[in-house]
């Protein structure tokens, strides 16, 4: 347990003062401004913070303000000040609005609006008059004070304010530091939204715990350039960012001359074959492959890493959504140590991390230092540790609901620990059902596995309360169309292509591969897909079959295509269906087809010794 003496580094202000003392002249923050990277050393950063803190005190800010009221708002620019002015009528307690960027603010002369510079100037005076003020306040703070309140995204209900203490964030940051052996020499690029727990852990808590440098890009549009200039050693991004980077590389490669393109594809094949294993220092890579990889590194991988700004990366993380296997492998095969982590706002984004040398696509790694992971009977993942939230803001009901008597937080995710002790996430717990035989059935997990094939655009798995799992498939018209053209298969449109024998063969192979993978996944081996059909129309948000964010609405689809579900489970060989469709211009029409239903090979479950 950390000691409670004021000298212990258990709150963020204490950490800041500590770094100002021990590495006062090392860069704490860099920001690119007017085309030049400007640095603030730790001592400078501490001075700036001191000035802001004193300035806020001068305005009447107290450490423990009346609970549940926002009296101060610090915002970025004119646009946000305007928003504050708009909501001011409904926030009668809002006393001061402080802005950073003075652009366009010349004509705002309301007495409660202040420039940050003004506040700092006030603070400097305050600091002269009360030289002990900061030291006293820092001494008064405790590790169990709430350091920040982060709001959940609200995809699963009304957003809740998650109160995180200094102790929790520092514990999570220290754990990560220890796990990946982070030093004060790391450079991180900070460009994600501040309100997201990920940015808070990586760019704030870990920087203050470890003492490394935060680099802020010039603007949202310049991230790529700025990243290349800084060359971070430590990096964190959601999968979408990695995907965009890869797309840009691929587009530029397609525009390159044939020599470069040839080299690129040749060496990317080499990397695909052995790159990830070389990164993991695994054995069994042939001498020839090692030689080729070395050559490829010289000619392709190193220059490519440089273009991506990833030359110096020691550790890169992704989290927030499932990352596609090809994407993940691409970065790892280039020698970039991309890893996955698992966590949520309530756990400071810190539950599981992938250890170096133990990175696998389908797991999110092992429980992080200090974290206990347990599985409920329902398959829900429960976690306990110092990084848990203190409470939901003003929601004792929600707090009681999510933290049980033993102190475990209920994540709402279903998963299991595999034989190596790695956690595998399956689905949201509320979506997990059971087959008639009692085995767990996680439709989303199976659908994702199917969708990882480029030929499959959407999949809908059924099985809750049934004996076996059956699935609807939507082919990807681009990928399958291309595949068909190369084979000289003529087709007129989606419905026609979807009904082709050859396409059914292709999809059947994909489904069988998924079944084969499932055999190695314990309880999920019973969820192998036994029958499938390819839908005659693409699932579409306009027909209410998908949400606007393209998630399948399983219940609605089961009802709309009840005939097809019955045919799947009734053992029929084919089924006629006619469906109304809405066109983009609002007209409706109908699509009719006689859909073939295929039986798929299933495999015997492999039992591994635990």
């Amino acid at each position, binding site marked *: 347990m950390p000691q409670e003496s004021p000298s212990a580094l258990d709150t963020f202000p204490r950490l800041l003062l500590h770094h100002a003392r021990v590495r006062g002249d090392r860069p704490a923050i860099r920001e690119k401004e*007017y*085309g*030049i990277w400007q640095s603030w050393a730790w001592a400078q950063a501490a001075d700036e913070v001191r000035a802001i803190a004193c300035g806020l005190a001068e305005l009447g800010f107290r450490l423990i303000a009346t609970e549940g009221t926002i009296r101060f708002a610090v915002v970025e620019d004119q646009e946000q000040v305007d928003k504050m002015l708009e909501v001011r009528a409904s926030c009668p307690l809002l006393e001061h609005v402080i802005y950073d960027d003075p*652009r366009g603010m*010349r*004509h705002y002369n309301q007495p409660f609006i202040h420039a940050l510079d003004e506040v700092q100037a006030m603070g400097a005076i305050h600091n002269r008059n009360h030289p002990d003020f900061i030291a006293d306040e820092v001494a008064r703070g405790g590790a169990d004070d709430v350091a920040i309140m982060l709001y959940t995204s609200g995809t699963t209900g009304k957003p809740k304010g998650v109160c995180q203490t200094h102790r929790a964030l520092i514990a999570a940051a220290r754990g990560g530091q220890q796990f990946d052996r982070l030093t004060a020499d790391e450079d991180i690029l900070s460009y994600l939204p501040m309100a997201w727990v990920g940015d808070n852990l990586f760019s704030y808590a870990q920087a203050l715990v470890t003492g490394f440098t935060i680099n802020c890009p010039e*603007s949202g549009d*310049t991230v790529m*350039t700025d990243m290349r200039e800084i060359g971070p050693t430590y990096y964190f991004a959601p999968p979408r960012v990695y995907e965009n980077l890869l797309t840009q590389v691929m587009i530029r490669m397609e525009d390159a001359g044939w020599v470069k393109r040839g080299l690129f594809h040749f060496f990317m094949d080499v990397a695909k074959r052995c790159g990830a294993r070389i990164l993991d220092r695994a054995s069994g890579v042939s001498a020839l492959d090692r030689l080729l990889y070395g050559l490829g590194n010289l000619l392709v991988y190193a220059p490519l890493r440089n273009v991506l700004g990833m030359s110096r990366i020691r550790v890169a993380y992704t989290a927030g959504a499932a990352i596609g296997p090809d994407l993940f492998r691409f970065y790892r095969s280039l020698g970039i140590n991309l890893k996955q982590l698992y966590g949520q706002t309530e756990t400071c984004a810190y539950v599981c991390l992938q250890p170096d040398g133990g990175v696998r696509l389908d797991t999110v790694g092992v429980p992080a230092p200090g974290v206990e992971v347990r599985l409920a009977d329902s398959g829900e993942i429960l976690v306990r540790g110092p990084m848990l939230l203190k409470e939901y803001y003003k929601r004792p009901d929600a707090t009681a609901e999510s933290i049980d008597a033993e102190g475990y937080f209920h994540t709402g995710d279903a998963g299991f620990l595999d034989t190596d002790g790695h956690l595998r996430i399956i689905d949201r717990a509320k979506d997990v059902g059971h087959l008639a035989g009692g085995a767990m059935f996680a439709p989303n997990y199976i659908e994702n596995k199917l969708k990882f094939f480029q030929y499959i655009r959407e999949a809908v798995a059924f099985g809750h309360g049934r004996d076996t799992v059956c699935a609807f498939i939507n082919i990807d018209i681009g990928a399958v169309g291309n595949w068909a053209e190369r084979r000289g298969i003529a087709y007129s449109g989606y419905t026609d292509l979807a009904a082709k024998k050859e396409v059914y063969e292709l999809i059947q192979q994909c489904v069988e591969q998924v079944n084969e993978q499932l055999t190695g996944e314990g309880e999920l081996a019973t969820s192998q897909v036994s029958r499938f059909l390819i839908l005659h129309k693409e699932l579409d948000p306009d027909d209410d079959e998908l949400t606007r964010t393209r998630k399948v609405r399983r219940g609605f689809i089961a009802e709309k295509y009840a005939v097809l579900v019955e045919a799947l489970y009734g053992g029929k060989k084919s089924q006629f269906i006619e469906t109304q469709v809405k066109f983009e211009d609002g007209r409706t029409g109908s699509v009719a087809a006689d859909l073939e239903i295929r039986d798929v090979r299933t495999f015997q479950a492999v039992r591994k010794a635990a």
Partner: protein
Amino acid sequence: MSARQIGEVILNLEHISLAFGGVKALSDISFDVREHEIRAIIGPNGAGKSSMLNVINGVYRPQHGAITFRGRTRHDMNTHQAAAQGIARTFQNIALFRGMSVLDNIMTGRNLKMKHGFLLQALYWGPARREELAHRRKVEEVIDFLEIQHIRKTPVGRLPYGLQKRVELGRALAAEPSMLLLDEPMAGMNVEEKQDMCRFILDVNDQFGTTIVLIEHDMGVVMDLSDRVVVLDYGRKIADGTPDQVRNNREVVDAYLGVAH
């Protein structure tokens, strides 16, 4: 709401007439521009708007008339005088160096302010180097102001039209002009680009107090932006006043909508 104070007349044009051979581009036009105001020149195609702008900064020399700028009356301006006295402009058809980067293009706007000779500049040595760094700082401020950091190093020829227009405005701003002449700054832009450009024009006027004379076709834009509007038709001035006055002027309506004969 605005703290901007419209000042005295700084530019006064009296009885300007300009002809190309037998074609009368401008006949007997008089109007003035006050300090810190946004003054619009509008009119149908071929009304003489661009000619008017070219007279102000000395590209064309009128046959008759007098131009008084900052208390000094001349028969005509010349381009170098105009620039030296703080008049900068943009063009109807973008006139940038397409192969050069955005940064270099805007840097050319500083040319007049550079004190050191060509040779020292080329050597990038001693005082010339210090000077260039100071200019670069100014250019970076313009880049920041116009929010074009992400294209700083991009060759202008590769940029979309709306951004090229913004770069051209940047080059004019780099000269730190006291008067800015904008020739159809929003021609060919989509709604969003127009909104951005409007905001930049208002910000320039507001933050730097720059006097702005602009030609524009989009009536909505003109009426929203301008303090005063002068209307030309076939080289004659047919109206002059606030947007409201001009909007309700009979002759203006006729010129734009046509007259029933």
